[in-house]
């Protein structure tokens, strides 16, 4: 049963939906633990019972080490997202936020997107690939607009739908053209003869646009800022981590399975996209005042670093990318846990509102600072190690200029991450500001995330495991 984790996620989603029917509003607090336990069980079944090589359904669904690690990432980020969103949905907040609710539906839809992402990495034909990408994307439109009385949330949802539909149309056109050229929907290596045809390049351009939308690669990034700002904070966290991972998984499926071997030819293009993305994300992030918008541009620049794993199509790029993805999930979600907590307690989202946080809540300010430093890539935090592996891949592929651009960008990013740290540590607190309370769940989540992010930077065994497993498979 190599699709046991997927099955558990589906069963859990349906169980939540049905349990929700029989509960009155007060007892619905058990829905979040149900979802969290479901994901933990799915993760356990993935780790215990799913081999790293296997296929079923006549080869239409298969697992390999890369897909296996992607699934670990999706389940992990889904689990953390549930843990940081339950306070908001259960109403354990300082400032009541209007118009957010429907907990059973929220967790069901969230689990459905996780299912989509997990099937996405296991798909071996175009139809499954496309359908599961839609399953990973379409419920996110709804989650973005989940705050129903908030005009900004509705606007964000609307923008996301329109841009998402456009990107899906591009992608579908590209996939259709490639089907027309090859006459097969199987994700097996494409005949190199096709490269001579303009239609092939048209299809590739369409696919690049579709993938670029998911991954917020410049110049397909323009939806991100408004959507991230308008969405409820936990959904923003999920969008910036899991949705980006789904985009990377899709890119991996297309580039390494289908267009096997093309990626080496496209190295310059990938490098240019990576450089553009990180530079624009970093420079625009400097002038932001809303913290969610700020994190949107930070996430765009992080996507630029992640794409560096594809440069040159080196096998080392894949473990480096997977490791950075896991690091990014833990780090970015730690920062977002602080943002969610702060907006739950105060209802404020401006960077200036964080002033003096280190006086009132020193521990939370510390975890947030650690997360931000890790995103900037300060040693010995895990973000540094992850970036180091990605940069070394680019340098091994011969793109020294890209490494230079990325290093300069890391410095720029340190400046704007320090802006928040400055507000928290140097600016004086307001006179009437008091210590803000934190719920035990969120406190525990934050503690575990911070510890994990420190350990990932110090203990090398995680990267070594990923690297040995994926490299052995890629070298076959």
């Amino acid at each position, binding site marked *: 049963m190599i699709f046991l984790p997927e099955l558990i996620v*589906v069963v859990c*989603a349906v169980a939540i*939906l049905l349990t929700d029917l029989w509960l*009155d*509003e*007060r007892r619905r*607090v058990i829905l979040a633990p149900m979802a969290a336990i479901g994901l933990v069980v799915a993760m356990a079944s993935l780790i215990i019972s799913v081999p790293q090589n296997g296929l079923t*359904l*006549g*080869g*239409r669904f298969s697992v390999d080490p890369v897909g296996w690690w992607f699934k670990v990432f999706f389940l992990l980020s889904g689990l953390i997202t549930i843990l940081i969103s339950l306070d*908001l*949905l*259960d*109403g*354990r*907040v300082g400032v*009541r*936020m*209007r*118009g*957010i*609710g*429907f907990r059973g*539906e929220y967790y*069901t*839809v969230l689990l*459905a*997107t996780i*299912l*989509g992402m997990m*099937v996405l990495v296991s*798909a071996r*034909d175009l*139809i*499954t690939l496309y*359908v*599961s990408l*839609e*399953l990973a994307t*379409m*419920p996110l*439109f*709804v*989650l973005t*607009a*989940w705050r*129903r*009385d908030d005009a900004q949330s509705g606007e964000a*949802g609307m923008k996301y739908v329109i841009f998402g539909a456009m990107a899906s149309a591009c992608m579908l056109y590209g996939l259709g*053209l490639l089907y*027309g*050229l090859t*006459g097969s929907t199987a994700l097996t290596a494409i005949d190199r003869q096709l490269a001579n*045809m*303009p*239609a*092939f*390049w*048209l299809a590739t351009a369409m696919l690049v646009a579709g993938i670029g939308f998911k991954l917020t690669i410049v110049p397909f990034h323009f939806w991100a800022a408004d959507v991230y700002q308008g969405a409820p904070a936990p959904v923003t966290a999920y969008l910036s981590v899991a949705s980006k991972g789904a985009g990377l998984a899709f890119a991996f499926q297309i580039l390494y399975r289908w267009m096997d071997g093309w990626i080496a030819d496209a190295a310059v293009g990938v490098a240019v996209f990576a450089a553009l993305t990180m530079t624009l994300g970093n420079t625009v992030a400097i002038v932001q005042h809303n913290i969610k918008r700020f994190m949107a541009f930070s996430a765009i620049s992080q996507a630029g670093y992640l794409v560096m794993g594809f440069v040159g199509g080196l096998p080392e790029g894949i473990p480096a990318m997977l490791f950075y993805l896991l690091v990014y999930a833990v780090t970015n979600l730690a920062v977002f846990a602080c943002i969610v907590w702060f907006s739950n307690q105060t209802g404020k989202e401006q960077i200036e509102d964080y002033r003096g946080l280190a006086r009132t809540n020193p521990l939370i300010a510390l975890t947030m600072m650690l997360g931000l430093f890790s995103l900037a890539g300060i040693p010995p935090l895990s973000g540094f190690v992850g970036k180091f592996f990605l940069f070394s891949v680019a340098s091994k592929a011969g793109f020294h200029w890209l490494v230079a651009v990325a290093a300069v960008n890391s410095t720029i990013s340190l400046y704007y991450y320090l802006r928040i740290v400055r507000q928290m540590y140097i600016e004086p607190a307001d006179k009437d500001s008091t210590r803000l309370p934190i719920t035990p769940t969120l406190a525990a989540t934050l503690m575990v995330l911070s510890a994990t992010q420190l350990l990932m930077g110090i203990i090398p065994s995680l990267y070594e495991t990923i690297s040995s497993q994926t490299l052995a498979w890629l070298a076959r």
Partner: protein
Amino acid sequence: MIERAMITILFYGFAAAAILLALAVTTSRNLLRAAVCLMGVLLIQAAFYLLLSADFLAGVQVLVYVGGIVVVIAFVVTLTRSSQLLMDHPSPLRMSLAFAASAGFAVVSIASLWVSALHQPGMSHSKVDSTKAIGMALLDTGKTGYVLPFEVVSVLLLAAVIGGIVIARKTPPPSQPFTTGGDKPGEADVTLPKSQRISKDGRDSR
């Protein structure tokens, strides 16, 4: 021979009509008229499927798109009276940019498809029961089956329906109960306009 010539003539006729109707959909200032033109485009698409001897697909196309989606669009247009609201006058610069972009895209795709040799599947005019074959393939768990995308689509539809209901339903969400305080679940504090409020005994107050 004559059959093939007929099919070719029919194809080009339908194709020209589809392009003209699609242009009418985008340029029409009246939403209802645009919806009717859209219906024409979708019907012609069903005709294409018939020409390719995909009878089942043609039937589904008519049922779902023409019978379902266009009718819903027509309902929305007539119920909201928004047909008069479509009075957006973009600036000449934006219009010319949009025109240049779409014309450029059309030229590039036509040119690249013109010079590329697409994969030619063998034209099959065998009278297999395509409905039955599709049904079998959708639930087949073997090499040629599509059970996985079929199931994924079912989850996708479920999630989309749930999301649509959450976004569109009239009742406000049960507002967040303060579970930590141990007090009663909070009343909905979102006020709806009077006409939409539902009175205590469940009857509409209108």
